[in-house]
């Protein structure tokens, strides 16, 4: 029913990126609206920059123009050809006919290009064909013909909208209260392979709330991973200095065989037995005699949400040992009743991704394909896989990245609320008893 383009998502993406991060809105389709220059001009004049796509059997040919179509006016165009994933181009000037011209012909000023709508074919001069890398095969038949308006994927209006959204999210998260005020701060555990971006994500979160890029957790490319201690980071709100309602817990990265986080340590972390700055030992889990061991953790000491962190670019190339280890840990998390999400970092460095894609990740096909790959590999539900772009080398904040980071954080806080809401009644009664005793003590 709705008018749709014949372009595949990959073709559209390649053209979007080639012409500088454009969004294409389909305006005219010859097979629906008629092979007619009159109809074309009626629908497509005064639209600003446009892209015209001609579908031949073996390739896609197109005309890109920065100026509006206006009758009886010359416009500069780029004639391009898309074959597989390669784009070649040639510049020329096109003469836009009168609306009243019923010849059905559109041609360039020098005559190198002649589009005949009535006969549904295109004639291109031999030298142009040679330059574009096409076979000498004139005239070229037209199967269909589409015209798109070209807009910037990331224009001033969208940046403003993203900034408004960023500010709204900041306010929501600053004032968030964990479910039923059961705990003063929600504990979110970041787990993942070495180099996945756990510490980088923490730094990014802190940067967003501080209002400038900051660096507290050390980040490096050392293959064994720099984070060797268990850290529980409480973050001060940059504006008024209050602590934010969550704590991010960082661990040793997961490694192969004898490297990385010891599996035996995981359940201790989840239940809240390990205190800040515990030095991990890959070979030996913590014991109850250790000075960092918390014998009787309260609800506030335990982990309320687990985020499995993966680098979007390397998540599909993890070794089988690490995959098995992650699945094993996920089962442990489920046994403890803790809600979990998956966090894909560095989506901005994925192939074909531009910044414009980051403001609507749910409509971006390469990102969707990546999420499906993660789902297949680890079994996470699609709605539990979040995407972010960490701050790694920038000096200034970017509202687009901020929104991704804050949205992911909001999902984690919601997940933690779900966990707290689902706690067995005894846990809640225990807390109420503590509060009661505390009040008695204060009253004395």
């Amino acid at each position, binding site marked *: *029913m*709705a*008018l*749709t383009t014949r372009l595949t998502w990959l073709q559209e993406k390649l053209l979007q990126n080639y012409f500088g991060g454009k969004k294409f*809105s*389909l*305006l005219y389709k010859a097979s*629906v*609206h008629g092979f007619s220059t009159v109809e074309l001009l*009626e*629908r497509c004049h*005064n*639209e*600003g920059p446009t892209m015209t796509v001609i579908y031949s059997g073996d390739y896609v040919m197109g005309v890109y123009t920065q100026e*509006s179509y206006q009758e009886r006016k010359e416009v500069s165009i780029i004639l391009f050809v898309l074959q597989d994933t390669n784009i070649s181009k040639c510049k020329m000037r096109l003469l836009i006919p009168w609306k009243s011209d019923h010849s059905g012909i559109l041609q360039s000023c020098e005559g190198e290009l002649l589009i005949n709508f009535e006969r549904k074919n295109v004639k291109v001069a031999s030298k142009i064909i040679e330059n574009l890398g096409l076979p000498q095969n004139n005239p070229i038949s037209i199967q269909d013909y589409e015209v798109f*308006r070209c*807009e910037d994927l990331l*224009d001033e*209006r*969208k940046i*403003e*909208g*993203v900034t*408004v*959204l960023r500010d709204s999210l900041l306010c929501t998260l600053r004032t968030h209260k964990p479910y039923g005020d059961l705990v003063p701060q929600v504990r979110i555990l970041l787990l993942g392979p070495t180099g996945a971006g756990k510490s980088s994500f923490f730094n990014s979160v802190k940067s967003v709330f501080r209002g400038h890029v900051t660096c507290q957790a050390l980040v490096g490319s050392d293959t064994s991973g720099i984070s060797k201690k268990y850290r529980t980071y409480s973050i001060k709100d940059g504006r008024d200095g209050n602590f934010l309602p969550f704590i991010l817990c960082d661990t040793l990265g997961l490694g192969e065989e004898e490297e990385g986080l010891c599996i035996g340590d995981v359940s201790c972390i989840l239940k809240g037995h390990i205190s800040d700055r515990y030095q991990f030992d890959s070979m030996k889990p913590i014991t109850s005699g250790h000075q960092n061991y918390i014998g009787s953790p309260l609800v506030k000491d335990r982990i309320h949400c687990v985020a499995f962190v993966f680098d979007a670019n390397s998540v599909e190339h993890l070794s089988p040992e690490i995959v098995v280890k992650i*699945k094993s840990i*996920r*089962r442990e998390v*489920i046994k403890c009743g803790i*809600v979990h*999400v998956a966090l894909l970092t560095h989506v901005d460095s994925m192939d074909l991704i531009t910044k414009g894609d980051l403001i609507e*990740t*749910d*409509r971006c096909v390469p990102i969707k394909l990546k999420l499906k790959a993660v*789902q*297949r590999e*680890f*079994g*996470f*539900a*699609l*709605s*539990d896989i979040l995407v972010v772009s960490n701050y790694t080398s920038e000096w200034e904040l970017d509202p687009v990245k901020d929104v991704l980071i804050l949205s992911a954080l909001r*999902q984690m806080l*919601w*997940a933690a609320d*779900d*966990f707290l*809401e*689902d706690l*067995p009644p005894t846990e809640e009664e225990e807390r109420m008893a503590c509060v009661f005793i505390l009040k008695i003590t204060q009253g004395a």
Partner: protein
Amino acid sequence: MEVTTRLTWNDEKRLQKQLGNVSLSLLYKSSVHGFGLRDMVQRCSHQGSTVTMIYLKTNIIGVFMLGNYPTLSKYFEEPHYSFCFLFRSKDNITGTDTFLLNMAPEIADNQLMYRLSDETFFSLCPNNKTLYLLRSVKKKLGLFEGRTMDPFIYGECEVFRVEEFPKGINVHRDRLLEELRAYKPYEDLVSKVHILLLGPVGSGKSSFFNSVKSVFHGRVTRQAIVGSDITSITEQYRTYSVKDGIGGKSLPFMLCDSMGLDETERIGLCMDDIPHILKGCMPDRYQFNPHKPITPQHSAFITSPSLKDRIHCVAYVLDINSINSLSSKMVAKFKQVHKEVLNCGIAHVALLTKVKNYNEVMQISKMLDIPIRNILMVENYASEFELDPVKDVLILSALKQMLRAADDILEDLPLAETGKLVPFCPS
């Protein structure tokens, strides 16, 4: 001269969501393409569904058309689905801001209008930049701008092509939400209807609970663990209460989730556990053992369940994609369970996910011996990032049917059973 919508980016996303998570492509903008009816029609005809946004001084009026825009030369005999709505730049969406226009749009006298037997409900005159709305339409949209009989003057008009199809879905969703919030079990015999979700491993039982909770919470939730590998198999008996929004009161139903059925003996839900679940003896959070059913000696076993503890409706949850691969053993197991459900006199429905054609429904009806009217179709929130009114309606409709089925059973209880505190099932 830039061809860009006047909507802020956030408002555009809000509009997309209101129309059912659609894509919008701007086709016509009056300040660029001309304030003439012909200018509008020549760009908007033969584009599929459209939404026309009319910017008044302080309000934005929208008109969604499911069918093609009318043309200058053609008179539409057949009415098709349209609705007129007041677009609000804030998150609360109410159903009273929409007026259904079940009549054909037409072009006449330089106007785009909806009229029925000499009464004009809606009339847009681009040449004069005026919008006329019938008094009842104004009232429905809550518009009091300007004097009663005068047409509005608008500053801008934009038409978008709508990709994907809303069907007044928000109105329907809101109505269903209200019905379910206000629902009371038959003659208040129980305060909450207990709905048991039963089905093979991976059929979407826990997903359905999460989806129901998501609808009432207004955001995607993940209380029941969901996934697509062996790690996420449900192993505990859970009775989930659903709250109406954050900090809201509990809704009048509980969803009970159990271990999945497996065709192999001693794997999945133990058959002897089922009568205990149905009678209401199974405690919340009971850890299932595929090899051994619960016994009355268990510390948390409910020895004298009352009517309120029982299961009042059973929903068999099936992924339609795996129906054809159901083994004869699994079908036999289903029949065994179904026999137990019938013995206990409990209402039952089948809940299918991702149905594509009617033949599949017929197949289920025959296989499980369940009437067609008791087969419901939903799509869980397993692959979406935001709430979707279309899915909401499917989920809420299914829930409504379950509650109705439970009511039928409660109504049919012998009088003696409603007052007694003895188990209903034959021993």
